[in-house]
């Protein structure tokens, strides 16, 4: 795929071998392609309403919000409960939460609210139906919530500096959709134009939850001291997002959905290719880039983490951006300006900095970049069937072309197969363990992709080269799942992470970071190698401001 530019020059897409390494994928940042941002752009003309408000003086009860356009409506039903401090845990397996939420298709009737009240707070033990679209639960950041309520009740605004350290009032954990716990299957809604982008319903749920958290602090403060309480200032409310604790459960998603992963990465790569191919760049475009660069560098000062790993990455980014600014300020505008910038960046910056600049380069070009969001979903079933009539030598060739990196790896060596992925009975989520220290590897999930593709390569090399894949599979069905992947990778080169996800050197949060950057999360704060906290929608327009949004909100901060 090449984009023609004047003077018959071409800018190639960056090769998968460069981009699909985990260390690079784990350095991606939010951009115009991020789902939080595309949600706001898609729904900015929808009308927001509070349909039902029934909180008691402690802030417990139910609220129903809706987004409406013509005859279409989506609603969020919020259930807020009392929770003892001893019961508060962000773990997916926790059984009680400060609040739980369900996104409803249409406007719920009282009997729907009652039915869901009996099920949604129970989470995994409850059941939903095809009328419900997404499900989540959240806990308060108690110190922030109390600080805000107390300040408002006393008639003053909360301390911005204190709030900027946390960035949210509530943290959600998993946001479930697409058929989990009886929710509507994806096919039921996939033909709706407003839901074409990935995770759109999940993004909608989180956006509503943010509104709920603001309403709940305002209501609780007012109930606490009706005579003195004030409302949270919009400028502060806007800069509060929703926190999220994300663990390993999310990591296998990007391995289990290879065609979808390709679509996400490909959209980003095509955006970069288009921008690098722009012949004449205006000063206005450069001004937009520069403005967001300055705002981002300012925002980075509010990124707080105790993680040595993340601190190192943040410091490398800050250092690189400082050098980049010096370079950029002296740069004269020439033909193919962004191509020149990109080439400098890729020669002089670390992964974090390169991918940060790639995201930023999209900002002046909404018209070119935003349409790519429509290509970020895919009907995965279309690519499920194995072309069994092809010769086995094709598989060998594809591996040699697209998986060259794994051919020299020796998977007999302990360090290359240290870890195994499994589905935890207790936690009801995928987890990672040491194969040589823990039980359970006999129930390993099909996520040792590199090891099994190498095995496929060795087995197929021994097989008659003119035999068909069908003949090979008759006696090698244990390799069927990787045969499927290899054939997918031939069509979708960005579908595979080009790293061994069972090696002892794996940093699983790189996998989380990749997915979260596509969500549009910021303030990555790893709490270990295995889970991290992030913030979503910080700076996003409040519901009554949505229609005025110019998509610049991701660069706002409390400072």
């Amino acid at each position, binding site marked *: 795929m090449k984009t023609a530019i004047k003077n018959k020059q071409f800018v190639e897409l960056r090769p998968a071998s460069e981009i699909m390494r985990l260390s690079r994928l784990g350095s991606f940042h939010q951009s115009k392609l991020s789902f939080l941002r595309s949600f706001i752009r898609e729904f900015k003309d929808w009308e927001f309403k509070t349909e039902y408000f029934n909180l008691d003086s402690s802030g417990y009860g139910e609220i129903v919000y809706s987004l409406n356009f013509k005859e279409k409506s989506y609603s969020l039903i919020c259930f807020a409960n009392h929770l003892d401090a001893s019961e508060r845990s962000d773990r997916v397996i926790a059984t009680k939460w400060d609040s739980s939420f369900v996104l409803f298709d249409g406007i719920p009737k009282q009997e729907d609210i009652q039915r869901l009240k009996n099920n949604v707070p129970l989470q995994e033990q409850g059941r939903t139906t095809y009328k419900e679209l997404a499900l989540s639960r959240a806990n308060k950041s108690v110190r922030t919530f109390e600080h805000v309520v107390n300040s408002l009740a006393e008639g003053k605004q909360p301390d911005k500096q204190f709030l900027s350290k946390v960035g949210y009032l509530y943290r959600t954990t998993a946001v479930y959709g697409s058929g989990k716990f*009886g*929710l*509507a299957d994806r096919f039921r809604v996939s033909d709706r134009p407003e839901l074409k982008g990935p995770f759109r319903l999940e993004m909608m749920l989180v956006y509503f939850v943010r509104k709920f958290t603001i309403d709940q602090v305002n209501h609780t403060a007012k109930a606490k001291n009706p005579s003195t309480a004030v409302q949270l200032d919009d400028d502060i409310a806007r800069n509060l997002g929703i926190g999220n604790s994300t663990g390993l459960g999310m990591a296998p998603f990007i391995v289990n959905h290879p065609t979808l992963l390709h679509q996400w990465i490909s959209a980003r790569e095509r955006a970069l290719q288009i921008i690098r191919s722009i012949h004449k760049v205006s000063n206005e475009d450069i001004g937009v880039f520069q403005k967001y660069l300055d705002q981002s560098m300012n925002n980075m000062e509010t990124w707080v983490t105790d993680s040595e790993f993340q601190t190192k990455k943040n410091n490398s980014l800050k250092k690189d951006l400082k050098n980049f600014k010096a370079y950029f300020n002296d740069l004269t505008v020439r033909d193919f300006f962004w191509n020149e910038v990109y080439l400098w960046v890729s020669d002089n910056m670390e992964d974090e900095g390169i991918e940060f600049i790639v995201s930023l380069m999209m900002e002046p070009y909404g018209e070119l970049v935003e349409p790519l969001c429509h290509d970020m979903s895919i009907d995965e079933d279309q690519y499920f*069937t194995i072309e069994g009539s092809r010769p086995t030598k094709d598989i060998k060739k594809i591996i040699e072309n697209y998986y060259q990196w794994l051919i020299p790896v020796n998977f007999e060596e302990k360090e290359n197969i240290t870890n195994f992925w499994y589905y935890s009975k207790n936690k009801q989520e995928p987890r990672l363990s040491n194969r040589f220290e823990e039980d359970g590897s006999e129930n390993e999930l*099909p996520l040792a992709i590199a090891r099994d593709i190498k095995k496929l390569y060795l087995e197929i090399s021994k097989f008659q080269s003119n035999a068909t894949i069908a003949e090979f599979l*008759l006696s090698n*069905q244990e390799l069927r*799942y*990787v045969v*499927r992947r290899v054939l997918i990778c031939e069509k979708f080169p960005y579908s595979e992470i080009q790293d061994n996800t069972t090696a002892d050197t794996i940093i699983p949060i790189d996998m989380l970071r990749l997915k979260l950057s596509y969500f549009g999360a910021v303030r990555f704060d790893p709490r270990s190698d295995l889970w991290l906290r992030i913030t979503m929608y910080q700076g996003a327009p409040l519901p009554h401001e949505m229609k005025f949004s110019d998509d610049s909100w991701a660069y706002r901060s409390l400072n």
Partner: protein
Amino acid sequence: MESYYEIETTCKRAARASGFSWGVAEEIGKAVRSLEMIGLPGIKTFHDYLAYSKKNKLENLSLINSGENKSENIFCPIKTSVAILDDCKKLFLKNKDIRFSKIAYPLLLIPTLNRVSNIIGQKIQLSFDEINIVLNYNQSVVINTQGPFPSLVDSISIKSIDGQPSYEKNQYNDLYKLSLETFVEESEGKLSGAGAGLTDND
């Protein structure tokens, strides 16, 4: 009630737990989901099949080379359908009708053979006992019974069928003539307009 996502995921894991490879388990999850979506008893059939396969030795299928496949053992519907799927282009080029002797839970063949119909570009007729099922390019399934469906049949026929029309040619012609009424007659003036002219037909 479970969503189709839950049905697919649970059946995939159950298949894996029962000894199928992950790759075949993926096929099974999709097959059961597909049966349930078209209103056929996928979960019940797969559930009963698993119990049956524990007690009975099923044929370990080798390459299907001919139209006639006989064995002392009972054929497994999953291994059979996956083997047909993988080799379908070659298989249906050589054979119009592929027959198997005893096969268990033939309903489980339907989703995979429906995909085969799409790949080979021909309808497939699946017949056992008094039951006839026509599989249409993975778009629809026509079946002449609401069940019950047998757990074991003595013979089964899987035929690729050329799309014989269900209508008389003159019926189609009548409709075609009627459709012409939506066309507009070309005048001299229009003929000189955009598009290829009468002499421009090389």
